[in-house]
């Protein structure tokens, strides 16, 4: 047997051995939303996107919305009547506002400005739906390959009364900027967002939950400098904050209580006392409108699917049962927010 023959023989044996221990083929995107055989009943209306198309889950019904529109980050007002989302174009995006069926739509941010094409993402309603927080790179300096300038996302506020927007938070340059802005329910002068930055020696990527008073403009960090805590989601009463903590290769879902009035130096960091609700690679948590559950996206066998975790806030906040799958093998967009309305 020459060397080549031995090589082939050994390879064949090794491959056969591998076949014996194989876990099967990697699942691929089916191109549609798939519901499990044992369907879960969704209370209220839960919105998610798949392939940039918007879907609404309600009861055991699945309804596609806004056909032909590329949607990211849907948001619904607390009364369930208004819908906002980021509409994606080829090289830009804009915030669009309409009724909950997606009709009477109006674009409230420009897709471009003198500084160039613009991004806009993550709209979020105030309790009375008269204001919207969102992210944009508006106000950046024009950039070219020979003269690079930062184009990080800052937090902006749109006032429906005046039809105007202004910047609330300027991003730190070359960090990617801020994300996940939210009004605090029951406290119209408080908001929460994720600040992306670098911490430690040598510098490492970090993400801090930031609490801001819009009345004074002051902001404080709710999480340590070197940690990665992000994607905050308020309970409907504004008392609890769910968020994702990345640590040791996992992205777990935690929840913590937050004092009612804005505190300048909350120490120890409130995230340090947070309670673990769900382990895994969890993304985009959102509370049910009645506070009885948290929905999120989590991958199983390569597909991000929609789950609902029942929670109770009686006594200490905790999961009151296992998470139930709303979809199965659907490859939902895990970079796009969920929304949940009555």
């Amino acid at each position, binding site marked *: 047997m020459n060397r080549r023959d031995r090589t082939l023989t050994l390879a064949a044996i*090794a491959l056969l051995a591998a*076949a014996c221990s194989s876990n099967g083929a990697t699942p691929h995107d089916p191109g549609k939303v798939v519901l499990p055989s044992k369907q879960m009943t969704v209370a209220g209306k839960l919105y998610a996107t798949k392939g940039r198309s918007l879907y609404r889950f309600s009861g055991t019904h699945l309804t596609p919305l806004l056909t032909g529109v590329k949607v990211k980050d849907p948001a619904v007002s607390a009364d369930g009547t208004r819908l906002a989302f980021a509409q994606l174009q080829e090289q830009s995006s804009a915030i669009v506002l309409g009724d909950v069926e997606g009709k009477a739509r109006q674009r409230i941010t420009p897709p471009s400005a003198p500084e160039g094409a613009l991004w806009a993402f993550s709209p979020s309603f105030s309790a009375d739906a008269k204001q919207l927080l969102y992210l944009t790179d508006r106000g950046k300096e024009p950039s070219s390959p020979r003269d*690079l300038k930062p184009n990080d996302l800052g937090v902006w506020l749109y006032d429906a009364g005046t039809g105007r927007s202004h910047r609330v938070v300027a991003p730190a340059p070359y960090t990617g900027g801020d*994300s996940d802005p939210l009004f605090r329910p029951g406290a119209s002068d408080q908001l929460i967002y994720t600040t*992306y930055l670098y911490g430690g020696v040598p510098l490492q990527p970090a993400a801090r939950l930031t609490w801001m008073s819009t009345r004074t403009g002051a902001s404080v960090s709710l999480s340590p400098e070197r940690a990665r805590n992000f994607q905050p989601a308020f309970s409907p009463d504004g008392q609890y904050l769910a968020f994702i903590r990345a640590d040791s290769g996992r992205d777990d879902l935690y929840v913590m209580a937050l004092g009612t009035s804005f505190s300048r130096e909350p120490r120890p960091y409130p995230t340090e006392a947070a309670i673990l609700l769900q382990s895994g690679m969890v993304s985009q948590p959102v509370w049910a409108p009645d506070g009885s559950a948290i929905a999120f996206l989590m991958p199983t066998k390569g597909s*991000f699917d929609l789950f609902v975790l029942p929670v109770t806030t009686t006594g200490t906040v905790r999961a009151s049962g296992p998470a139930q799958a709303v979809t199965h093998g659907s490859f939902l967009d895990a970079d796009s927010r969920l929304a949940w309305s009555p």
Partner: protein
Amino acid sequence: MNQTGVTGVPGASRPSRSHWIVIGAVLLCLALIAGALVYIMPVLALLGNHDAAPGRNVPAPAHAPPPLDSKQRINILLLGSDNDQKFREDALLSQTMIVVSVDPAHHQVTLLSLPRDLWVEIPAYGNAKIDLAYARGGAALARATVEKAFKIPIHYYAWIGLKGLVRVVDRLGGIDVDVLHPVLDDNYPNDFNASGYGTERVYLAAGPQHLDGRHALQYVRSRHGDLLSDFGRSIRQQQVLLALQQQAEGMDPVTALPNFARDLNGHVKTDLDLVRVTQLALFMRGLRAGDVRQAFITPFVRDATSPDGQQILLADWPAVNRYLRQLFGEDLLS
């Protein structure tokens, strides 16, 4: 009278049952061999794609690869380059240099990223950024440069182009990655348009998500919006390598290997042979998250300007050597 009633050529007789069994076995073997060849030819074609030998006098590899049945450490220099449309194929800078060190004895893999702007001595060339080694002398000179600067014996190399990474990720059905920061790049090089030039705008939201090949490439390649620049990119590259390894765990290697080979042909160059690839693939399948160690020499380098005015990184070599000793123990070159 012929007792059997068979007539014809003297000495010829109807094949016995044992003859049919032998013929059947031979046919079966031939069919199996033909099937194996059809299966394995794309893989052999891929692995036969070696880097062209450099024109200069490049030192030979410091060490032969360890025997297959040994528990000795195996080091592979992973090289990634810009696309092969825009530049001459033999003049690509290596944008990525990662030493993948497989330690079977301790069931551990170390990923060591080497910054592309690091100022080193390139054998038979002189002092330059380390990314120039591949452009000047291909994988052989890149290997010799790493061996000389870091005293790490490089047993194999694997070069992958941009399209190669995209195809690997897509063949796996995408990868699950926790994007560390929002990635915004208004000047991301658009390598896949007709000319290979031009830019496009890129946005990736932060957080856990599923990336296809195109977006995985954007994630590992963009550096304009990252304060950590090339170091930030090194972190992301290692993150994607780990995600690839995790995604491949669910793959059926028997059916996947030829498809991978067909996808990657022309986008990968390596001197790994089939048996070693198979051995490494099986080893990687058994790895857990804690078995992979991520390493960077960033704490031991500082910004500087080269004599010809380039922005470079200078290493504190005694500190680098101490760090490498921690990582590789006695497995370094003397």
